[in-house]
C-alpha cells in the first residue's frame, strides 16, 4: 500500500516532533513533582520563548549583527545568540510569574493552581497576540535543501539533524544535572517529598527556583525548535502543543521526567506515523486516544508516577 511506503519518512518526522514534545514534557513533570500541580500554561510558555527569540533576533538584525549561516544550518551566529538569550529571558519571566502568582497560591491547593495556570495561559497567549498579531510569523526564511539518505528513502534537513542532536544533548545535560549535582539531587528529593526536604534543611525555595529555570528554559527551547521545524509560529502554538505534551507526560508517568522523554517520543512518532492513515488534522486525536488508553490500562504511566 502507498501509505506504508511513507512510514520511514514519517518516523523521521516523528523523532523530531517527539524530541520537541519531550523537551516540553520534562518541564511539566518537574513542575508537577516538585510544585505539586500541572501547569497548563506550559504550552504558552513555549510560545513565549519562541516569540522572545524572534523579537531578540529582529533586534539583532536591526543592529546589523551578522547571521551568515553556520555550516549547513539555515541560521547563523546572531540567531544562535538570540536562542540563548531567549532561554535566559524566558526563565526570568517564569521566575517573575512564580513570584507574582504561583508563590502566593502554593497553600491554596493544586486545583486553584491549575486554574491560575489556565488564566495565565490565556493571558500569555494574548500578550503575544497583542504585540505580534494573530498572523503567522516566519522564523527562518531560507529554504533548506534536504539531504537524501539512500537505501532508506528518507530525506532529512541539516536543521532537523540539529534539532535532534540538541534535544539529545539537553536531555543528557538534564540527566547529569539531576543525578550528579547537589541541586539536582535536592530536586529529586523534593520531588519525592518536599515536606521532608524542608525538614532535612534543604533550601526548598532555591529548589523551586531551579525547577522554574530548567522548566522555562526547556519550554523555550521546545518552542524555538518548533518554530525552526514548522518554519512559522503563531500565538496559538502553545495551546496546540499542550495536549500532545500532556499526553506524553501522562503516558510516561506524571511527575517522572524520564517518563516525559519516553512518552514524548512515543507520542511524536505515533502522531506522525498516523498521518499515513488518517488526516493530519487529527494528530491531536491520536495523542488523546493514546492517553485515554493509558489511563484505562495503567494510570501511573509507563515508568510510574513520582507521588
Amino acid at each position, binding site marked *: 500500500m502507498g501509505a506504508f511506503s511513507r512510514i520511514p519518512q514519517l518516523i523521521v518526522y516523528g523523532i523530531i516532533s517527539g524530541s520537541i514534545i519531550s523537551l516540553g514534557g520534562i518541564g511539566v513533570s518537574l513542575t508537577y513533582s516538585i510544585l505539586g500541580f500541572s501547569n497548563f500554561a506550559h504550552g504558552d510558555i513555549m510560545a513565549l520563548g519562541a516569540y522572545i527569540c524572534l523579537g531578540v533576533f529582529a533586534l539583532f538584525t536591526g543592529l546589523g549583527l551578522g547571521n551568515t549561516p553556520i555550516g549547513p544550518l539555515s541560521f547563523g551566529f546572531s540567531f544562535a545568540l538570540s536562542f540563548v538569550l531567549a532561554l535566559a529571558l524566558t526563565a526570568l519571566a517564569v521566575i517573575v510569574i512564580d513570584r507574582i502568582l504561583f508563590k502566593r497560591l502554593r497553600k491554596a491547593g493544586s486545583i486553584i493552581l491549575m486554574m491560575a495556570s489556565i488564566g495565565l495561559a490565556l493571558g500569555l497567549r494574548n500578550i503575544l497576540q497583542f504585540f505580534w498579531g494573530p498572523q503567522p510569523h516566519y522564523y527562518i526564511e531560507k529554504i533548506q535543501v534536504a539531504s537524501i539518505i539512500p537505501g532508506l528513502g528518507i530525506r532529512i534537513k541539516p536543521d532537523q539533524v540539529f534539532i535532534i542532536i540538541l534535544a539529545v544533548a539537553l536531555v543528557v545535560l538534564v540527566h547529569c544535572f539531576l543525578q550528579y549535582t547537589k541541586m539536582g539531587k535536592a530536586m*529529586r*528529593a523534593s520531588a519525592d*517529598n518536599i515536606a*521532608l526536604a524542608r*525538614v532535612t*534543611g534543604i533550601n526548598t525555595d532555591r529548589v523551586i527556583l531551579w525547577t522554574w529555570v530548567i522548566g522555562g528554559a526547556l519550554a523555550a527551547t521546545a518552542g524555538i525548535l518548533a518554530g525552526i521545524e514548522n518554519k512559522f509560529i503563531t500565538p496559538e502554538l502553545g495551546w496546540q502543543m499542550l495536549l500532545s505534551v500532556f499526553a506524553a507526560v501522562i503516558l510516561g508517568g506524571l511527575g517522572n521526567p524520564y517518563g516525559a522523554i519516553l512518552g514524548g517520543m512515543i507520542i511524536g512518532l505515533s502522531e506522525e506515523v498516523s498521518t499515513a492513515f488518517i488526516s493530519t488534522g487529527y494528530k491531536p486525536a491520536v495523542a488523546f486516544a493514546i492517553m485515554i488508553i493509558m489511563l484505562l490500562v495503567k494510570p501511573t504511566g509507563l515508568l510510574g508516577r513520582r507521588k
Partner: protein
Amino acid sequence: MEVLHEVSVKLDAGEIVTIIGPNGAGKSTLMKTIFGLLKPTGGKILFDEKNITGLPPDRIVRLGMAYVPQVDNVFPSLTAQENLEMGAFILTRDFSDRMDDIYGLFPLLKERRRQRVGKMSGGERQMVAMGRALMLNPKLILLDEPSAALAPNLAAMIFDRIAAINQTGVAILIVEQNAKESLKLSDRGYVLASGRNRFEDTGKNLLTNKEIGELYLGG
C-alpha cells in the same frame, strides 16, 4: 482544635527521654511543635537557652536539632548515600568524615549505600532516616516512633543503634508506642495522655511502676 493542654517537657544535654502514652495523646503533635512544624498557641520552647518558639524547621535545623518523622522519613528514589548527602545539604565544606562516622554507626548502610532506598526493608530505611538526621552533628534528635511497623528483632536493632548514637553525646527525645524497649535505655520518661502530662520519672522507675505498666505498657 487544641491537642495539647499545658504540656511541659525538659531534656538535658546527652539525655535520652521517652514520651509514652495512648494513641491520640498528642505525642507526635508535641514533637512537631518542638521542631517548628506546628505553632503553639501559648508557652515557650527553649533550646540551648535560645527561644526557638515559632521558628521554622529550616532555622531550627541550623541550630542543632534534627527530626525523624514516623512515616515518609526517607527519599525513596535516592540512594542511601544520596539521602545522607541531603542531610548535609546546608554544609558547604567537605563532609566525607562525617559520612564515615555515620557508616561507622550503621555498617549495614555502608554496604547498601548505592541502593535506592525505596527498595530497602523497613529496618534499613529507618537507619537511613536516622543517619540522615545525624549528618549535621545535631545536639538533639527527635525520633517519632522509630520502631513502629518493625518486627521485634529489627526494633531491638534500632534501639541498639539509638543507644549507640546517644553514646556519641547526642540527646535523644523519643516518642514511642513500644514503650518497654524505649524506656529500658531512657534516662527519664514522661507519660502523656489526652494532651496533658500525667506522669514523670526515671526510665527504670516507669518500667517497674505497676500502674503505668497496666495502663500504658500493655501489662
